[in-house]
């Protein structure tokens, strides 16, 4: 070591740098992040894949015929048993671009639908996470900071939402809005829009975020630096923005992967119950729903999307755990219930 280096003051790393160094050392978290990013990339390539394979994953193609090893193979095979009324879709060919995972009951390429479906699942859960974090943070900040009657009303409302079984609430909201969409003032969301599940899932998880944020804001509200700012006459919104929000950022970041995992499961459940993503659009949940009828003949149609959900959710959870340990080790944010 040179003398100059000794004379230099020790370079102090900021808390963020320390946290990210810690996260980078967490091999499980990094591997999970890689897996998740890979899934995201694959789903983003869905249009390219469909174009390359020359299939339309949204149109029913019962009479399509494909070529395998030079032989013509129909996508739907007429049943030869009994009355011969039923069809059995093509099983997996294990050839990329050529009905890799076989066809579904409408003769559509399951692989292409998987990628498109993943895209909707990821978009919905990601957008719902952002929605929940914004609304939940706003509610938590307002309730925790202003206290009094505002807090009482907001907290009681959150209590009631919290006591509600999540799935029942989500299903109720979906059923009501599925036929006609939502039309409140300037907001006009058509039925069948991907925004419907985003908003519904976003709303039902608001208490998950708002309650812990409220608690944190409440204790920050009585911390010395905030009391000092209030005494100096700094306006409330400025204190919220400059002093309180930065102090809850780590909690919010830790929420992102864990909320997204929860949202993915919820979205898939709603779609499975056919009240989430509407046909002809696909999500992993709707593909499982389609595959239910084929479960005993072509089980892959239902198995693969479930596996995709499990892998994505697990990757998000492992990464979320690592993120929490790195950023906010004493945090009480745990893997979600339901």
């Amino acid at each position, binding site marked *: 070591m040179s003398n100059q280096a000794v004379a230099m003051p020790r370079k102090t790393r900021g808390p963020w740098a320390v946290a990210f160094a810690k996260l980078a050392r967490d091999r499980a978290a990094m591997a999970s992040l890689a897996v998740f990013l890979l899934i995201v990339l694959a789903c983003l390539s869905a249009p390219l894949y469909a174009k390359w394979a020359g299939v339309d994953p949204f149109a029913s193609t019962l009479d399509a015929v494909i070529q395998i090893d030079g032989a013509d193979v129909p996508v739907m095979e007429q049943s030869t048993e009994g009355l011969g009324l039923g069809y059995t879709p093509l099983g997996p060919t294990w050839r990329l671009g050529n009905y890799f995972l076989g066809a579904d009951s409408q003769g559509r390429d399951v692989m292409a639908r998987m990628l498109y479906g993943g895209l909707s699942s990821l978009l919905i859960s990601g957008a719902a996470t952002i929605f929940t974090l914004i609304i939940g943070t706003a509610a938590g900040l307002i309730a925790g900071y202003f206290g009094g009657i505002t807090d009482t009303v907001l907290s*009681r*409302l959150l*209590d*009631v*939402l919290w*006591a*509600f*079984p*999540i*799935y*029942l609430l989500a*299903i*109720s*909201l979906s*059923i*009501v*809005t599925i*036929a*006609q*969409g*939502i*039309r*409140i003032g300037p907001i006009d969301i058509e039925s069948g829009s991907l925004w419907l599940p985003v908003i519904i899932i976003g709303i039902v998880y608001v208490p998950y975020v708002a309650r812990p944020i409220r608690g944190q804001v409440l204790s920050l509200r009585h911390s010395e630096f905030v009391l000092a700012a209030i005494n100096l006459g700094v306006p409330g919104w400025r204190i919220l923005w400059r002093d309180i929000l930065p102090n809850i950022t780590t909690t919010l970041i830790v929420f992102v992967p864990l909320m997204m*995992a929860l949202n993915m*499961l919820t979205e*898939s*459940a709603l779609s*499975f*119950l056919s*009240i989430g993503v509407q046909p002809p659009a696909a999500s992993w*949940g709707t593909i*499982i729903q389609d595959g*239910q009828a084929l*479960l*005993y003949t072509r*089980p892959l149609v*239902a*198995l693969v*999307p*479930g596996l995709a*959900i*499990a*892998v994505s*959710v*697990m990757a998000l*959870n*492992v990464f979320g755990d690592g993120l929490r340990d790195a950023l906010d080790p004493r945090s009480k944010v*745990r*893997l979600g*219930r*339901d």
Partner: protein
Amino acid sequence: MIYAILRRFGQMLFVMFGISVIVFLIFFATPGADPAARIAGRNATAEVLEAVRHNFGFDRPLYVQYVKMMEKIFVTGDLTSFVNRGWKVVPAVMDSIPVTLSLVFGAAILWVVVSIIIGIVAAATRDSWLDKLLMALGLLGISMPVYWLGEVMNLITQSRYHDSWAFSWVPPLGYKNFSDDPKGWFLTLVIPWITLAILYIGIYGRVLRAAIIESLQEDFIRTARAKGLSETRILLRHALRTSLIAFVTLFGLDFGALVGGSALLTEVVFGLHGIGKLTYDALQNLDLPMIMATVMYASVFVVIANAVVDFVYILLDPRLRTS
């Protein structure tokens, strides 16, 4: 003391009232969701719509409709379905309670026992390969969609391996009454119990492990070691005992929610006609009276579960008793 109980009771009523209002508003006052249009059908004329509206009382003020509905659910109990006219809603709910209770009770026993074992073993061997394996499996359980797991179970036990020695005992899907056929009741429920329990085993095993490890850092554990107690006793009587508080809270809330209809997905996949399935069918038909009845029933259970949690809390933690 009496004041505290009354206060708690008041809170319970408030939460139930809140839930009923929210559900009522969701179905009767969401812009664009016209219940009369649903009942009258797609191509109904304006006159028919008006008639339906009047007939079902949708033209009266909202609070009147709300009060009437609550009266019919809780006081007279003669609420009838909008879809199958004449079908009494309250008895239908009562009939499906045993199915849901059977499903949830069995699964709860399974998940509590297994997750306590997993939590203890993982905490005792923390950072070992066994701990890591158990926690990874727990995470897998949390990450799988429950309805998908149910389908996989069906695929294995009803179709692919049904004829093997391992699963030939599995009866076809459906529910059998305990009083008619106790053995059939048990056998039909085994696979649904396992399916439902797997998710919760994952959550509870992980939560308990974390709580035990946190307890093991406490000063009183060092005192217990200084007393010369065995590691097993320290783990079970001191660390586990103080960790159960978090565990019980979670259990009360989840149990209440499940009995209240959150087991819906499991019920749908396994063809069990419990509360969840009833709610789901009613939602599909937008059968508003049935939805109100099942959701109110759900909220009663959730609220009772919350109160029971508070009570057990006091039993478990003497620090709360004096106040």
